[in-house]
């Protein structure tokens, strides 16, 4: 009886391990597939949009000072024959231009079809990141669109924690605390910038208030003066015409 039971349980176990193996194999297969897709999509498989040939797309980043921004992009050109987007294109580059809040250009470079640009802000405010293609071979586009994958990381997100952990030899807890410190630093910088912006806002409002006040007074004076002048002029005119 026990042998039979043992045999039955063995069979059950084998079928169980068999099914587990099947599940494991299937899982591994899907994971390999995902890994393959990941490799195919290479570094940047983020959000993407379409851009025309001569079109310039600008993005605004309002950031406090001493903040680092890392931008990664990848371009794909539409192939009319295959009716799909090619993975990478030779000879097609993007021109990246970054302007600071005072309209001064702080980064102006041409990159290949896949690129990464990094800059640090020195003045707080609205920075403008503009991208356009540098294609001189108009036949390349053939009326199609360029697909641009873009990923912009700001401030604390630019830190590569794996690298920091390796360089400073931090334990897990130390790395978590370092991340918290970076986050709090970002919050503090943003609050500082907020104070500066609020002051500008207040100055604008006070200037509007002053202007409205002065304008009311000046307008009343102008009206009264013009009224006087009109009446006096007409009176003298009618007296000259001997009508009064």
């Amino acid at each position, binding site marked *: 009886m026990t042998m039979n039971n043992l045999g039955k349980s063995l069979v059950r176990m084998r079928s169980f391990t068999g099914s587990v193996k099947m599940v494991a194999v299937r*899982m*591994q297969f899907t*994971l*390999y597939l*995902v*890994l393959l*897709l*990941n490799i195919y*999509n290479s570094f940047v*498989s*983020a*959000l*993407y*949009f*379409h851009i025309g040939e001569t079109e310039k*797309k*600008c*993005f*605004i980043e*309002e950031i406090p000072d001493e903040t680092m921004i890392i931008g990664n992009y990848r371009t794909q050109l539409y192939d009319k024959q295959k009716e799909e987007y090619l993975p990478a294109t030779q000879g097609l580059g993007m021109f990246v231009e970054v302007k600071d809040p005072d309209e001064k250009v702080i980064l102006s470079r041409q990159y290949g079809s896949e690129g990464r640009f990094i800059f640090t802000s020195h003045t707080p405010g609205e920075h403008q990141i503009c991208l356009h293609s540098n294609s001189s071979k108009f036949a390349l586009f053939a009326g199609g669109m360029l697909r641009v994958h*873009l*990923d*912009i990381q700001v401030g604390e997100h630019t830190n590569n*924690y*794996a690298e920091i952990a390796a360089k400073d030899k931090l334990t*897990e*807890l130390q*790395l*978590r*605390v370092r*991340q*918290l410190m970076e*986050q*709090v630093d970002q*919050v503090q910088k*943003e*609050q500082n910038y*907020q104070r500066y*912006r*609020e002051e*500008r*806002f207040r100055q*604008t409002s006070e200037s*509007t208030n002053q*202007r*409205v006040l002065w*304008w009311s007074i*000046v*307008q009343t004076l*102008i*009206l009264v003066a*013009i009224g006087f*002048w*009109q009446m006096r*002029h*007409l009176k003298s*005119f*009618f007296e000259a*015409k001997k*009508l009064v």
Partner: protein
Amino acid sequence: VSLSPQLCALMFSWIRASELTFELPDNAKQCFYEDIIIGTKCTLEFQVVTGGHYDVDCRLEDPDGTVLYKEMKKQYDSFTFTASRNGTFKFCFSNEFSTFTHKTVYFDFQVGDDPPLFPNENRVTALTQMESACVSIHEALKSVIDYQTHFRLREAQGRSRAEDLNTRVAFWSIGEAFILLVVSISQVLLLRSFFSDKKTTTTRVGS
């Protein structure tokens, strides 16, 4: 079967947050696309920063073309959904109803959860108290930064309205002063012309 390297590759590729602020000219439509895996929880949040009546049309479609979210002339909204299929999801912002105001739109598209801090975080053991305290502080700070961003955008909106008002007041003051002078002088001249046209009319008036 060792799953961790594949798991980390999985985590690094399909989990991200993209936030962008871009300018949408009048009568224009801008679309963004993202490839999402089935079952991922995604959030789309957008806010109009400057321009006109601070509203924009937003539309979110799944790979089949089914509209998951469609709102017209919205100033701010947040929409969470779970991807029902694999494929390319598309969301568009449209300013086609506006004839001459261009808008600045901010959006934040979060796909999945944030990547873990450590590459081989497939731990079976629980976090220590210190580590879980750090995790909860991290989550709280993330929400602080999120609120800060929205506050900054609202402040930018208020400030742009105030600056608009300031320039409008300045132009209107100068314009109105000019109009007043022109109108009053031309009134006087017109009145004079009624009375000094022909000799015949004056005699008629005289008699």
